[in-house]
């Protein structure tokens, strides 16, 4: 049954009853966290980074445990005194006062913090929102019963925020000293309305309190296990809390659940929502923290991979502050790498011909502006038979050949430098502290940008903020440049690096693709330098899919980021946001392997016409044989785990 059908079913059920009773938490209202107690960990994280925690570190430290322990003790005390464990919030905090020696102001502050988070995280159930309205029609009374310590006035506030308006009767266990768990709450309802049990229908998610006990009393229960039945089967992230930064994982899970409740997603949007959205948000929070520290004056977002990030920072100017200028700028290996050959570290030439799509010697030389016919001796000396010979990936002969032609490469670079240089100069004009946002890996774009800028100025400092950097970054070490990686830094940690080079890079480059072609070069227009973009049909098909992924990612970010901004960014800077992504790379489902493996990727500069499958599906005959063709296809595949799954 879909939501509409479920609602119809429940509406039809209402007709026989005079009283409609609802559980509140996880029935009418959900929290955008995994478990209710996760809220205390979020509070704990907030205290670790805010002013209160700075002044009172002994209170802030391990606060979640202290809060839970206080509640346990408060319940025990009340049980001993009054025969019921149903405490209120104030009683819990009275125990905390004793445990931690809190002053009245401190107690009040902590209570307010907890309530603020409750309000931040609560959201309505879409089916119940409608059912609630219908429940109060036809002279039926609505009663809300909850086994909860929060004060009734506050719960009313949450209900109003979630669109549940009076008239209803609210019964809270901490206030009434009665509970559904014991059954006493239901007797209260019957007494309050002077009805018999068969007159009451009760909706709730707790198998014991909302179903078993209600049934025992004679009330008609409706087990509304919406999360477990309808939401959690669609969740792509492991539902096991990690030992570190559990509050991040909890918010991520809770927010994804919320989005899945409210909207239907196709595969691409869903991957964006559940995998790339959290990852991008994680990077955004991490780099915001760093950029503030570095006092960045202008942030440059490099096409195409920083398109989505530019979008988010543009929508949330409070992240870096209105004084930080945000610019989207057009760079690519094709447009920038050769002109930026100001110097000649020998390993940099690998980037002039790298990529799994193979081309001939002549093709590579012509692309560099070198006439192969003038250098036949060097071509032969390098070990090639002719200019038509195809150059395999990582070919040492090509490496040697290009290094032997260093002089011509440097001259050609100089000839092609004028427009890129003007473009770079314009982007850096008037500021000294620049930030660069890009996907990462070897820092070629930042290195190229900096090498060009240094020809004009020495008064600048550039910080690059990347998803990751690999050890080849050392080729781009320059004065006035620093490189920061969110997931890996120069290949460390090793495990994540291995994930990235086995499909992670290609998946990221797909997901972050901008809705325009790659930059082929620059031209002058009305005295300005503007980019020349590629118009490639094969590339456009992939761009459209990437857009859907980004729509899903933006849904996640737009849901979670405002909450994080309110609570405090520092509490949420964590690599846990990347966990769903690494799960995808390492352990894809069959559907994920099929859908994403079918995508094509181009890793050759300015040559997006040569696209290869991320994880090709082979014909059955080749799979069965497991021969040379199979091995070569596996070798070509970027994402080995998906390849193995597709061709099992």
């Amino acid at each position: 049954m879909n939501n509409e059908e479920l609602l119809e079913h429940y509406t039809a059920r209402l007709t026989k009853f005079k009283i409609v009773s609802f559980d509140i938490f996880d029935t009418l209202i959900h929290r955008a966290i995994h478990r209710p107690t996760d809220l205390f960990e979020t509070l704990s994280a907030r205290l670790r980074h805010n002013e209160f925690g700075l002044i009172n570190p002994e209170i802030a430290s391990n606060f979640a445990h202290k809060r839970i322990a206080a509640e346990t003790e408060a319940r025990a005390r009340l049980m001993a005194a009054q025969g019921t464990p149903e405490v209120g919030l104030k009683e819990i905090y009275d125990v905390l006062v004793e445990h931690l020696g809190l002053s009245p102001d401190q107690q009040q502050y902590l209570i307010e913090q907890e309530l603020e988070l409750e309000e931040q995280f609560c959201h309505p159930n879409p089916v119940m929102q409608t059912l609630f309205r219908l429940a109060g029609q036809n002279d039926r009374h609505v009663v809300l019963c909850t086994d909860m310590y929060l004060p009734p006035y506050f719960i009313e506030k949450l209900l109003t925020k979630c669109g549940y308006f009076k008239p209803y009767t609210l019964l809270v266990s901490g206030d009434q000293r009665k509970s559904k768990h014991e059954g006493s709450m239901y007797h209260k309802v019957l007494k309050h309305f002077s009805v018999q049990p068969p007159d009451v229908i009760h909706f709730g998610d707790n198998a014991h309190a909302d179903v078993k006990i209600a049934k025992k009393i004679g009330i008609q229960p409706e087990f509304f296990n919406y999360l477990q039945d309808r939401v959690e089967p669609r969740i792509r992230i492991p539902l096991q809390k990690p030992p570190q930064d559990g509050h991040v994982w909890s918010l991520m899970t809770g927010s994804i659940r919320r989005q899945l409740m409210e909207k239907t997603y196709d595969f691409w949007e869903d991957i964006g929502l559940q995998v790339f959205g959290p990852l991008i948000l994680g990077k955004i929070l991490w780099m915001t923290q760093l950029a503030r520290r570095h006092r960045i004056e202008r942030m440059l977002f490099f096409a195409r991979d920083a398109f989505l990030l530019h979008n988010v920072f543009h929508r949330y100017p409070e992240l870096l502050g209105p004084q930080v200028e945000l610019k989207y700028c057009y760079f690519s290996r094709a447009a920038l790498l050769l002109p930026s050959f100001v110097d000649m570290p020998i390993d940099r030439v690998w980037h002039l011909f790298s990529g799994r799509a193979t081309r001939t010697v002549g093709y590579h030389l012509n692309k560099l502006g070198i006439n192969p016919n003038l250098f036949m001796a060097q071509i032969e000396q390098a070990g090639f038979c002719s200019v038509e010979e195809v150059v395999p990936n990582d070919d040492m002969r090509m490496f040697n050949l290009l290094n032997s032609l260093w002089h011509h490469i440097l001259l050609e670079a100089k000839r092609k430098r004028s427009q890129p240089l003007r473009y770079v100069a314009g982007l850096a004009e008037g500021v000294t502290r620049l930030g660069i946002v890009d996907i990462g890996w070897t820092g070629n774009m930042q290195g190229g940008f900096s090498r060009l800028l240094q020809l004009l100025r020495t008064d600048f400092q550039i910080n690059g903020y990347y998803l990751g950097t690999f050890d080849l970054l050392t080729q781009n070490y320059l004065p006035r440049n620093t490189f920061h990686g969110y997931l890996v830094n120069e290949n460390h940690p090793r495990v994540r690096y291995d994930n990235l080079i086995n499909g992670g890079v290609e998946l990221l480059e797909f997901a972050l693709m901008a809705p325009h072609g790659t930059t082929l070069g620059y031209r002058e227009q009305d005295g300005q330098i503007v980019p020349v973009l590629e118009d490639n049909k094969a590339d456009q098909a992939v761009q459209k899919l990437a857009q859907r992924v980004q729509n899903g990612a933006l849904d996640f970010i737009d849901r979670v980021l405002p909450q994080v901004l309110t609570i405090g960014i520092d509490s949420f800077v964590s690599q846990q946001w990347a966990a769903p992504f690494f799960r995808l790379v390492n352990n894809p489902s069959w559907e994920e392997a099929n859908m994403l493996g079918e995508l094509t990727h181009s890793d050759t500069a300015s040559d997006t016409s040569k696209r290869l499958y991320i994880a090709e599906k082979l014909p059955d005959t080749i799979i069965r044989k497991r021969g040379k063709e199979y091995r070569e296809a596996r070798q070509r595949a970027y994402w080995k785990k998906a390849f193995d799954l597709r061709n099992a």
Partner: protein
Amino acid sequence: METDAPKMDATVGIITRTKDRPVLLKRALESIVNQSYEDWRLVIVNDGGDPAAVDRLVDHFAAHLRDRVSVIHNPTSLGMEAASNKGIQSIKTRYLTIHDDDDSWAPEFLTIAVAEIEHIRQKFPQVAGVITLANAIYERVEGNIVHIYRFEPYWTSEKRGFVSLSELLADNQFAPIQFLFSYSAAETIGFFRADLPVLGDWDFNIRLLSRYDIFIIPQFLAFYHHRITDQSGYGNTIHAGKSQHELYAKMLKNEWLRQDIQDRRFGIGMLIALRQGMHPMAKTAQLQPQPDQYSPVVRLQRIVKLIWLWLSSDQKIATIKKFSQILLSGGFRNAVHHIKAWYISRGGN
């Protein structure tokens, strides 16, 4: 340290020494005229070679050189350092650089070197020179054709920050082609020693570094060309004149030590002597059996680990292909070097 002269010929003075090497001189002149930075003055000192050949080449590049070049023909050779001094003393510039006829620069060498020396001196006024990193290019000359057969980063290209004086005392850390230095600083130390037919640049560097600092620009902007097997005029002095290097190295060290003894001070001579005395002790210590480092057991463990790393790699065939190619094209040593790098990059010890 520096005072602006009332009239400078240019910001950078380039001294090119040459003698009967027109093929290389042509390349050097190309390297200079290709510089993006234009405020330089070139002095070519033809130290005893054929003047006509030099004049023809200068004419060939006249449009690019414009009025920025002067040529000094020495009818007989004065020696490398005397030739440098003669060229230097014929101009007045803020900075100097020795661009020998057999070396070359990237087109942005001067742009970056001048910008960086002026930038670094704002924070470190004691800096009197900058060097860039260099690639060593191994080549042979056949007539008018230069065949390049090997290139690699010059041995000191791992160095960063300031040039170390104590390391410089042991060995020259950089080639002239990498170096841009202050004219007035060079003047203060008396320019180059004309009596040294070799190692004059090493002596100059030591004397300069004894008073000032030299900053390392971490970019490969210079090319130090070697012609190892060539004993002719095309050969490098460090290869072709190896025995002369050893002779004059000892002579200089004796000179410095003698001066320190005379002056009763702990100076450069003493430092070098001390280093040389420590060196055999360090070597002996290294030769002591290192129980864990190179024992057969450890070697075997490493081989086993290498094989295991290869077996657990996702690119077994590609790895074999790659190293085979390197073996065929680059030789055994090259292949071993790459295998070691692969091993270490994957967590091998």
